[in-house]
């Protein structure tokens, strides 16, 4: 067994000079008819992530901050292997469980149970692994009466609760959580925050994306700050959060988001 300090020296996520630019179509709904009737298809080039490098060590909780459109979600998708980078290299050690902006529930016609099982199978877990964790997921999400109901009938809070429950229950080596701290009602939020804190105190690698600076300061050890695709700052959580808060204050005279847990 490695001691805690030795574990921390191992790199869990290594992001090296990663960039991603993509073309976003300007059409509301891309169609063949539209393509044929217009001379050229409009695109906007979006430089989502520009030459970003950082490392997350094993057992570290890393907070990710930045305004809307800063490239946070794109970066999380790349770490999760959903979007391959265009340039650079990402190395991830361990099984990643992703909770990106309310993950499960891809097919609203299927029941909660079916969505959970299919989501797990797609993520590469076996049916046995899913069934072993199933009750725990349902219990945490407090959706016992809704698991056999098509997810069409779920409220957005219920969606979020189920997604959060799946991600934190699967005991991944690396947990990526994207703006999921604010799902459900106040009580469930408290509960997920407590769960997060439990997970953070374990020797587990976690990447949290949140607009709540208070939550990041509370949970994370280190933080990165993204701005329009650039890595602006990277370091100890207090310093980065303070710098970011100051930046927000300068820019919009509004630090209310700091108290937003």
């Amino acid at each position, binding site marked *: 067994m490695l001691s805690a300090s030795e574990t921390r020296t191992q790199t869990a996520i290594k992001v090296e000079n990663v960039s991603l630019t993509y073309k976003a179509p300007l059409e509301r709904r*891309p169609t063949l008819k539209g393509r044929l009737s217009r001379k050229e298809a409009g695109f906007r080039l979006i430089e989502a992530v520009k030459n970003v490098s950082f490392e997350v060590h094993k057992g570290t909780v890393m907070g990710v901050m930045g305004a809307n459109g800063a490239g946070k979600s794109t970066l999380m998708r790349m770490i999760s292997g959903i979007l391959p980078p265009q340039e650079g290299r*990402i190395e991830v050690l361990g099984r990643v469980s992703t909770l990106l902006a309310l993950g499960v529930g891809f097919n609203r016609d299927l029941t909660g149970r079916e969505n959970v099982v299919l989501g797990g199978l797609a993520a590469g877990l076996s049916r046995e692994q899913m069934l072993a964790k199933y009750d725990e997921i349902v219990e945490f999400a407090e959706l016992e009466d809704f698991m056999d109901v098509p997810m069409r009938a779920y409220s957005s809070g219920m969606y979020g609760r189920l997604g959060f429950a799946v991600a934190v229950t699967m005991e991944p080596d690396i947990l990526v959580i994207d703006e999921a701290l604010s799902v459900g009602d106040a009580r469930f939020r408290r509960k997920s925050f407590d769960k997060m804190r439990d997970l953070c105190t374990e020797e587990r690698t976690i990447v949290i994306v949140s607009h709540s600076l208070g939550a990041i300061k509370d949970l994370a050890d280190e933080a990165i700050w993204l701005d329009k695709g650039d890595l602006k700052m990277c370091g100890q959580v207090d310093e980065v959060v303070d710098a970011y808060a100051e930046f927000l204050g300068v820019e919009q005279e509004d630090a209310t988001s700091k108290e937003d847990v």
Partner: protein
Amino acid sequence: MQSVIEGERSTGAVAQGSAGRTASLRRIATETSTTPAHGLKARREDEFNTERHVYEPHKVGLPPLRSYFRELWKRREFAYEMARTDMRAQHLDTTFGRLWLLLNPLLLAGVYFILVDILRRGKHVQPHYLEHLVLEIFAYYYVSGAIRAGARTVVGGGKLVLNTAFPRLLLPLSSVLEHFLRFLPTLVIYGIIHVAAGLPVGPHLLLVIPLVILLTAIAAGLSMFVSALQVYFRDLTQFLPYMLRLWLYLSPVLWTVSQIDKRGLHFLVWINPIGPPLVALSDLVIDGYVPAASLFAASAGWAVLLGLIGSIFFMSRERDFAVRL
């Protein structure tokens, strides 16, 4: 803005030069007191019990194929579960659902039989035309159903495509699997008709298996192709039914090869991917002889060609899906 980073860099343990492989990371390196070289060694030793993923830019637009297909195979249970769940959502697991599964193609065969009967004014040159029609309709609807449903899979995958890392080829392939599971019971129905009509039964019928496999490969290839295309042209599913209907009329389903041979239209069989396998199926099952090797060769050729085009097109576009949905 730049000054913030510079400020960061000038503080902290820049002295740990070896740690600074990634420039902006030096502060983290300071926190971990041991040297990174040690960390690297420990990681290598750890590789036996952890999964290691490396994500790099795709070369020539394709993901690394070996690991792609290894991941795909690892998730075969997903395809099966997805197919079953989809059928359950359509209530195909209930008695009436199953009945409908059998009744639907039979009714279609009935409709087309009457249609052809009217067009021919009751004169059927061909013996066992009805059996031919039923068999070919079943096979055709297997392929076209898989393509039609497959087209929607990627766009319909929504959040799963956005938020989960998995080989997306599983989506159209699970829809092919679903239609294969729906096709099997119709084969039993055909079997009953076959025996009732007194058509020959023998070991030669085993050749149906490779023909069904080739039809499946053709269906899979086209299904992968249209499901990727659907991401870029969302109105494709509106055109698709017309194209598939046209395809039905151009395939040896409502007519037989001997009828078009008289008019010198035999080429229609070869330029149609499902032409050769459907002709072979009719030769084998209805007429009871082993079809010409050229029919098998052409079927296999189409299957390989469409399978390659479909999967390569899909995989080369796959990276794009998450930002297009």
